[in-house]
């Protein structure tokens, strides 16, 4: 129930209405193993969302290829679930129907109706089935978004800063929930974050990206044993290492400009 993803030589250039171009991604190569938990981190504007949208099939690269289990990615597919940064729930549907959306859209509501409550409990939202999105907190809404993606049993789950708008307690809570789900399902996880601690706490590997043009500067293997301790010596050492990498990346002169 998990997929490997291959990204090779991907370029994505945006052209805005004035004809100005932004190279959001340049020459991106990345191989993601099946069942891996991988984080993309980097300052804002370095192309994390762009890369995630390409993997999702919401967007196409100008050049290069993306494939999943050897098949070219040409468009969206429920096999790749996606959790937006925020506000992607359908406000006119209650929590239960938001979560069941994928089943209904794919004509599986009848067969799998019984499973809906399982997903509601999985993210700890029992009792909120009939609430509407505006009646629940941001953390709960993100859990609904995760359950809604998982009900389609995706082979890969793409998460774009799903905890960006949450306070640190809710955040830690949701991180543990995510780990638990990952362990249970074995789904390949690709998480965009700008929080170094979050990346270290969760990932098998951390992909560090730098902006202008957006590209991968380093891939770090996190070989700390799980469960990890946020205050552990090795944890802090890794944190320091990554921070230094960023300072280095920012101190570096940037000879490459796009015209």
């Amino acid at each position, binding site marked *: 129930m998990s997929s490997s993803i291959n990204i090779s030589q991907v370029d994505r250039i945006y052209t805005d209405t004035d004809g100005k171009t932004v190279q959001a991604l340049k020459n991106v190569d990345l191989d993601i193993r099946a069942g891996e938990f991988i984080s993309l981190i980097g300052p804002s504007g370095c192309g994390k969302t762009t890369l995630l949208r390409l993997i999702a099939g919401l967007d196409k690269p100008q050049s290069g290829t993306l494939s999943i289990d050897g098949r070219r990615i040409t468009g969206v597919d*429920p096999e790749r679930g*996606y959790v937006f940064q925020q*506000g992607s729930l359908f*406000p*006119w549907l209650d929590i239960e129907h938001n979560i069941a*959306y*994928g089943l209904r*859209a794919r004509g599986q509501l009848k067969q799998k109706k019984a499973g809906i409550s399982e997903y509601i409990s999985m993210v700890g939202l029992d009792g909120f089935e009939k609430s509407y999105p*505006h009646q629940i907190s941001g953390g709960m809404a993100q859990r609904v978004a995760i359950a809604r993606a998982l009900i389609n049993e995706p082979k890969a789950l793409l998460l774009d800063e799903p905890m960006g708008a949450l306070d640190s307690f809710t955040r830690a809570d949701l991180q543990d929930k995510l780990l638990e789900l990952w362990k249970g399902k074995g789904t390949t996880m690709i998480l965009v974050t700008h929080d170094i601690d979050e990346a270290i706490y969760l990932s098998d590997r951390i992909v560090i990206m730098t902006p202008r043009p957006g590209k991968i500067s380093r891939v770090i293997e996190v070989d700390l044993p799980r469960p990890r301790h946020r205050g552990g010596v090795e944890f802090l050492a890794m944190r320091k290492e990554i921070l230094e990498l960023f300072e280095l990346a920012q101190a570096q002169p940037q000879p490459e400009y796009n015209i």
Partner: protein
Amino acid sequence: MNTATVKLSAPVKESSHERTKAVWNYKNNAYLLLKILLTVSGFIVAIAVNIFFPQKAAVEIKDYVLNIFGLNISLTMNDAYIFLLAALAVFYLAAGLRSWGDKDSRKKYSKNAAFRFALGIALAVWDIGGTKLQLFAQPFFPGPAQVAEAYLADGEYVLQNTLYSLRLYAAGFSCGVLLGVGTGILIGWFPKVYYWVFPILKITGVVPAVAWMPFALTLLPNSFTAAVFLIVICAWFQIAFLTAQGIQSTPKQSYEAARILGSNSADLIFHVAIPHAMPDIFTGITSANAMAFTTLVMSEMLGQPGGLGYYINQSKVWSAYYKVLAAIVIMAVLFSLINHIIGRIQKHTLRWQEGVVKK
């Protein structure tokens, strides 16, 4: 330790004290009962005034013989008026008792009590000035009992005209809503349709529907379809306009989320765009509804063989202003009722918005 106990017990005492002290607001049964009495008493006063205030002015009080369930009953305008007042009193009494179990209804009812009491008193004053003393210029300002007389004199005819109006409205407005929502969805969804149809809608939409009446009357087979046509276009354009706007303002992210979850295009229209447009569709429907009433009455006054507008026109010819008022009263009640029903449907459909949108 001693002080701690004292401190702890103090608030407990206070709250138990509060519990025994009755709150004097809508939550209190005696308070609500008083409000019910106040509401009803206004109409009782109006009835008492009608019965006991001497008829000073020379107003002819005719007897109308009505055949009700095979019985011939003789009624005067004062009987009819008292009957209506009593009906109002009973209605509000029932409403008050019905609100008993529900906090929100209790609050609302209590709040309305003063106004409804004043309404009863105003009717009593109008009765004295209008009918009993006839202080105002006649026949322009009849009293309330004289307005009630119209229902005695023309009862069946008024009913026929009311049903005629209702039929016109139902046919025209329901077609208008269907066409408006339908075209609005097409315009909002397909850029080509938007390009070709939206400008037409925008320009013709500002023209009041009744302006088309000459064409409608000559080109359509009969005056009923002509009036239906006018109501249809006045509702159609307004609703289509707002529906299109609602469809177009659907956030891109909602479509993307739906597509990733497995939605096809039809699904995006029916399960994303239309639900998102629902609040706008209802805004369109409520504003179109108000315009539909106007169009209805105007087209009835200008060229219909029936309807409340037609009845007003006819009564005016005979200077029967009490009948004009009688028709206006029916319109007020009928249109409020229709608004109320639409409001209920809207509230139910948009229940997911509750608490988000300020009322």
